[in-house]
C-alpha cells in the first residue's frame, strides 16, 4: 500500500461518515408521507417513482430534451463505470483486454457527454442564470475523473494520480452539487410517498379506482 492508496482510503472513510450523517438527517421517518388516510398503493408508487416514472417517455424533461437526456445518461454511466474501475485498479484485479477496450469506449462516451453538458451550461443563457461555480466545478470534476480513468486504462500508469483525484472527488461529494448522488434516491422515495398515498402514482394502475366495489 502506497501513500495514494492510504489517501484514497481516508477520503473514502470521510465520504462514508458524511454520507451516513446526511442520510440520517434526511431518511423518511414514520408518518413521513403525512397523516391523512392513504388511498393508494404506496409501495408500488415508490417503486414506480424510482423506475417507471424516470423513463424518458414518462418525463417531459427527457423527451423534450432527448439529446441532453442521452448525454446525461452516458455521463452517469461513465461515472459509475469509473468508480467500478477504481475498485478494480485499487485491488489490482486483472481483466481481459476486450473488456478493457469496451470500457474505454463507454468511458470515452461518458467523458464526451460530460464535456458537451458543460459546454451547454456555459453557452446557454438560462443555464448560466441557474449555475453556480459549484455546478461548473462538479461537472469538471466528474468529467475529469472519467478521463483520468480512461487514461489509466489506456496507459497502465497514472494510478497514483487517479487515487488522489478520486480521493478529492470523495471529499467533495457531500458538500457540493454532487451530493445529489446521496439524495437522489431519497427524493424519489419522498415523491413516491407523496403521489402514492394520494393515488396519483402509479399512473398506470391507480388503486382507488381499480379496486373500487
Amino acid at each position, binding site marked *: 500500500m502506497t501513500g495514494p492508496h492510504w489517501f484514497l482510503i481516508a477520503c473514502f472513510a470521510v465520504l462514508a461518515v458524511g454520507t451516513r450523517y*446526511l442520510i440520517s*438527517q*434526511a*431518511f*423518511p*421517518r414514520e408518518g*413521513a408521507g*403525512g*397523516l*391523512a*388516510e392513504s388511498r*393508494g398503493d404506496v409501495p408500488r408508487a415508490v417503486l414506480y*417513482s424510482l423506475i417507471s*416514472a424516470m423513463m424518458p417517455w414518462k*418525463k*417531459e*424533461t*427527457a423527451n*423534450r*430534451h432527448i439529446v*441532453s*437526456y442521452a448525454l*446525461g445518461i452516458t455521463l452517469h454511466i461513465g461515472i459509475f463505470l469509473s468508480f467500478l474501475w477504481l475498485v478494480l485498479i485499487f485491488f489490482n484485479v486483472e481483466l481481459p483486454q476486450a473488456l478493457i477496450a469496451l470500457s474505454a469506449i463507454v468511458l470515452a462516451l461518458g467523458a464526451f457527454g460530460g464535456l458537451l453538458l458543460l459546454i451547454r*451550461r456555459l453557452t*446557454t*443563457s*438560462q*443555464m448560466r*442564470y*441557474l*449555475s*453556480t*461555480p*459549484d*455546478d461548473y*466545478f462538479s461537472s469538471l470534476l466528474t468529467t475529469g475523473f472519467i478521463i483520468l480513468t480512461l487514461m489509466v486504462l489506456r496507459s497502465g500508469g497514472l494510478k497514483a494520480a487517479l487515487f488522489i483525484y478520486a480521493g478529492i472527488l470523495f471529499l467533495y461529494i457531500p*458538500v*457540493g*452539487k454532487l*451530493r*445529489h448522488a*446521496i*439524495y*437522489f434516491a*431519497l*427524493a*424519489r422515495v*419522498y*415523491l413516491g410517498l*407523496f*403521489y402514492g398515498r*394520494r*393515488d*396519483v*402514482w402509479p*399512473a398506470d394502475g*391507480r388503486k*382507488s*379506482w381499480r379496486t*373500487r366495489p
Partner: protein
Amino acid sequence: MADKTLTLKQSRALEALNLRLGGRLRTHLNSCVHCGLCGESCHYYLRYGDPRFLPGNKVDQIARLYRRYFTPQGRLLPGWFGAGDLNDAAIEEMVDVVFGGCTMCGRCSIHCSIGVDIPFLVRTARTMLHELGLVPEGLQSTVNAAIESGNNMAIPRDEMVDTLQWLEQDLRMEVDDDSAGIPLDATGKHILYTLNPREPKFFPLSISAMAKIFYAAKESWTISTNCYDTTNYAYFSGSDASARELTQRLTGEMQKLKAGVLALAECGHGFRAIRWEGPDWLGEAYPFPVVSVIELMAGYIRSGRIRLDPGRNEKRVTLHDPCNLVRAGGVIEEQRFVLEHAVRNFVEMTPNRENNFCCGGGGGQLSMGEYRDRRVEAGRIKADQIRETGAKIVAAPCHNCIDQLMELNQVYELGVEIRTLAELVADALVLKSPAVEGS
C-alpha cells in the same frame, strides 16, 4: 444561524425554515442539480422564457437561504455554493417568484429529472414570507376574511340563509316535490356538504345542481350555515396557524352536527388542503372520511342511485383537470367516469390527468391583482388546449379554475361555456322512473 445583520422578522423567517427542516425538506433542498430541463414544464416559463420562472430558480429562492444559514460550506464559501443572504434584494425576488410566478401546480415535480417537490419548497418559502409580513395584500385579506367572518367572501349568515332558502324553493318547483329541500344545520346526517363561498355569492346554480343530485340520490345531507367554507387560502399564503384554524372549524362542525362524511364542493385547493394537508396541520388523522363530491357523484352513478341521460348534454364537452384536485389530490378517473355517463360527446385535452397544465388561476393568483396580466398570459396555454379540442363546454370541477377559465374565455375569445361537473350531471338527471317517463 445567529446573524446580527438580520432583523427580528428575518430571524423569525429563518426560524420558520429551521423548524420545518425534517427529512423531506432537507432532501428536496439538497437535490436540485440545476439541469435546467424543467422550464418547459412550467406555464410561466413557457409563456415568458424568463429564467426567473425556471422551476430550478424557484427551488433556489429557498435553497440558497438554506445553504447560507444552515450548511457549513454555504457559510464559508457562499459565492461558490450559491448561498445567498436574506436581504432586501433576495426578498424582493422571492416575493415576485414564489407568489407572482408560481401557482404551486406541481407539474414541474412530476417531470423533474431528480424528483424535487418544488411546490413543497415554494409553499415553505411562502411560509417564510408570511413571517416577514410580505404576503400580497389581496391574498392575506382573503385569509383574514375567512378567519374573521367564517368564509373567505365575508358573506353574512343571514344572506347565506336567504340564498339557500331561495334555492330550496326553486328546487321544489323544479322537481315538483315539496319534500325536496336543502337541509340547514341538521344533526345526524350522513353528509355535511361544504361550499366554495363563490357559489352562494356568484354561482348559486351550482348549489342547486348539487341539491338536485342529493335529492335524486335520496341522500341524507346538510349544509352548515355557520361553517361551510371549503376553501383554505392559508394553504396559499403559507400560514400554518390560519390553515389549522380553518381546518379545526370544519372538524368541529362535523362533530357538532354529528355528520358521518365531510363532502367537499368542487374546489381543487380546498380538497387538497382539507383532505390531504389538514391532518398534518392538526397533528392527527380525522375520525371521519373526507371526500370530494365528484367521488360521491361517481358512486351514485355506479350504484344506480341516480340515473343519467347523456342525450340531455349533446354539445361537445372537454374536461379541465384542476392541479390540486388531480395531480395533488388523486381524484383523477372519477370525473371522467361521471362525464362518460352525463354527456354524449366527451373529448380529452392534451396533456391531461397528472400531466395537465395549470389554468393559471391556482396558488392564490386570483386574489393577487398585481399579477393579473401575468396570470392571464400564463393561462394562454390552457386557452390553446381548450381551443384544440373544439369543445363548446369546459367542465371544470374547481371554482378558482372556473373564474380563471371565464376570464381566459373572454380574453382569448374561446366561445365556450364553463360549467361545474354537478351542473352537467344535474342537467342529465332522470328523476322519474322509466315507467312514469313512458306514460
